[in-house]
């Protein structure tokens, strides 16, 4: 409140995967995707690694078999985990901690299809689809639905405050939700198609690949917007129920 020192302003993370790491044990240079020093076989410091696909030894594709991902996660955990470096020198202990943490984050990110796409966009150098949420303009493809929904929500709020029948309002809310739910299903479908297209474009010209990524980002932005709309409807539903309890 009366803090003399201002809080910081958050920035977007950067995904620089520049500087190749140097082995802290023997000083040899090592490729960024190696986990253990090719020279002395000790666990390597993480450096500024940025690619979860490469870290897990996976191609940069959006289709990943869950069992394969889990198996890789378990195998690497067995190699990196701090449990096994308890008696190691400090440099190796630190490397084990960094590498395990990074592995856990990589696994968590790639396990979920949506965060997997977000990560791909980030390492391919596209601006985040997350940053636009909240303050974003309405995506053009959603204008019609958003307009209709906002009108309906305004009316429902008004009627709720003037004490209209709750169950009727509840029915109207779930009806208002239907077109948004449909949109969301459409989007899941489109995301899946685009993901498949990306996976088939490994040899394609850079321009085509870029177009697919842009389209994926577009869909993600819309998807986030749709989720916000659904959350708004849910809030409306719960304030209706809260009114019931009083």
């Amino acid at each position, binding site marked *: 409140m009366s803090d003399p*020192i201002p809080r*910081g302003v958050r920035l977007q993370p950067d995904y620089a995967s520049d500087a190749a790491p140097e082995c802290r044990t023997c000083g040899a240079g090592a490729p960024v995707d190696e986990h253990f020093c090719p020279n002395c076989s000790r666990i390597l410091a993480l450096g500024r690694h940025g690619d979860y696909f490469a870290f897990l030894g996976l191609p940069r594709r959006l289709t990943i078999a869950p069992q394969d991902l889990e198996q890789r996660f378990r195998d690497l955990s067995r190699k990196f985990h701090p449990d096994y470096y308890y008696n190691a020198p400090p440099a190796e202990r630190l490397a084990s901690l960094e590498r395990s943490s990074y592995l856990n984050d990589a696994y968590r990110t790639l396990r979920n299809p949506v965060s997997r796409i977000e990560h791909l966009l980030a390492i391919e150098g596209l601006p985040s689809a997350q940053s636009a949420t909240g303050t974003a303009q309405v995506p053009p493809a959603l204008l019609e639905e958003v307009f209709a929904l906002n009108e309906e929500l305004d009316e429902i709020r008004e009627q709720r405050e003037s004490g209209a029948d709750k169950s009727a309002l509840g029915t109207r809310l779930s009806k208002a939700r239907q077109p948004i739910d449909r949109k969301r299903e459409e989007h899941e479908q489109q995301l899946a198609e685009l993901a498949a297209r990306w996976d088939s474009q490994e040899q394609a010209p850079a321009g085509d690949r870029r177009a697919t990524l842009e389209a994926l980002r577009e869909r993600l932005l819309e998807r986030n917007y749709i989720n916000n709309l659904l959350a708004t409807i849910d809030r409306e539903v719960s304030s209706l129920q809260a009114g019931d309890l009083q």
Partner: protein
Amino acid sequence: MSHVVGIDLGTTNSLVAWVNNGVPEVIRDRSGDALVPSVVSVGEDGMVFVGREAQRRLLTSPSRTVYSVKRFMGRGIDDVRDEAALLPFGIGGEPGGVVRINVAGRDYTPPEISAFVLKELKHRAEEFFREQGEFDFEVDRAVITVPAYFNDAQRTATRDAGRIAGLEVLRIINEPTAASLAYGLDKTKRGTIAVFDLGGGTFDISILKVEDGVFQVLSTNGDTHLGGDDIDNILVQLVFKEIVARARRSLGDGGSGARGGPEASAPRPELVQAIRKAVIQAKLDLSELDDAEIIVEPSPDLPDGYRRRITRAEFEVLIEPLVERTLGPVRLALEDAGLEPRDIEEAVLVGGSTRIPLVRRKVADLFGRPPHTELNPDEVVALGAAVQADILISGRREMLLLDVTPLSLGIETMGGVTSKIILRNSTIPASGREMFTTGVDNQTAVDVHVLQGERELAADCRSLARFKLRGIPPMPAGLPRIEVQFQIDANGILSVAARELRTAVEQTIEVKPSYGLTEGEVERMLIESFEHAEADFAARLLIEARNEAETVILATGKSLRSPDLEDVARTDLKPGELDRIRAALADLEQVMTATDRELIHEKTHALNHATQHLAEVMMNRSVREALAGKNVTDV
């Protein structure tokens, strides 16, 4: 090499275990008892008692005897004010600071009290290894368990307790996960299991996936203030209300009330503890029987005593709301794991409170299958901790525990909103990075408030620490790039590092734990604990002397009550011998409560000496009788 052990530092009881040739075993005392009650009592002269001896003192010196201290670990006075009112010992501390427990005119922090329990366990283990004939019996490294739902401050407090007790804490692991390690040990298990852990003070639910020897926690949830203690409190309140009602009634009948029945407002601690002991016994009985009796013996506070029958059905109605409170966390844990109750292939019960039939029924209903009860719910956590200690020391890789952080970690941003950096149920170790810049020109410091919790507003989350990033080179606003790295290690404990990327200037960070001890405080307590080691050792010797004396007193009493005594005295004893024995007995009984160990020793020896002849005579007599009896039947 010195031994490593696994320790279950419980709310009610604590245990220590080790791995003997690949098999985890609980370490017991000479009488075969594995449990050390987590009770610490301070005598009039500052002597500290731990475990069973301290538990006995709950009734005689309630205001000097601390129990359930685990509920106060890593907490502030504001968190515990309500329940502090129910406790017979003094709870204090500055607002916004750690809880202080006032015993016998001295303030102790919860880690200091827990350290006494840990030292007792350390001693027990050392005694055990010494008796095994081991040369190097020192125990100075341990894995200690905590409830999965413990936050950073509570974990740190536990680690501090270990350090104060002179133990290097190799690892803090979660109780339900430890239990799963012990449970999955004997067979090559795979599948999805739920560990339901309802202990003395805390409730945890963990959902795990086991495959290839990797025990991966998918999600965890719980309540760090829900357990057997709460069940006891319900029963204590029931009994107390009835006692007050009875007293009122007898006053209404024309009684003078001069005998001083209990007052509704402030029951004396002695009475509360006597009631607590009685209801705990009834609670235990009701896990086996359909009805039980709550019996409070008459005492100055309660001249007529108190008795009441309670059926299991009645008991279940009383505790049902508490048991229901476990279901919310279970649902959330399943949701976070992306599973339905029917996906759970095995349910494992941990913690003494899971002996309650109602709890077992609820768990069975929830998962649609009977839970596993073949493991001793009191011991399984310590066994798992021992297994983890063995993994750390041996470096064997057959088994690996991958646990999660129970609560999201974030920082306060503009407007008092929480911004999450590491999400709950992230596998640990976990790291999160956050980029900052400055808001005004030439700003050289940034204030960071670290929070733990799921709520949107910073004020609703747990404050973990505040720190200031200093030494940022003066630059126009928005230009510096300050990277703050949050690292949760495999213990679930946080550390923070920061640097300004444009100039590569490392930042100095002063982390002030909101509800913890500073490094300096832990150091000081460690030193004090060494200084007290002599007094603690003296306390132990005193207890041993008293135990020995008690054995001799009991044996003498038995001889003196023998129906043959007069006959023996007439035929076999010297004149006045019996009187000398009685005098020696009275002498010893008189010094029993003294704290002079040498005196007790001396009087014990005196009594032993005085009774030696009598004991021989009695022995010969019974042998003769036995032989004589044999002859008779033989004829």
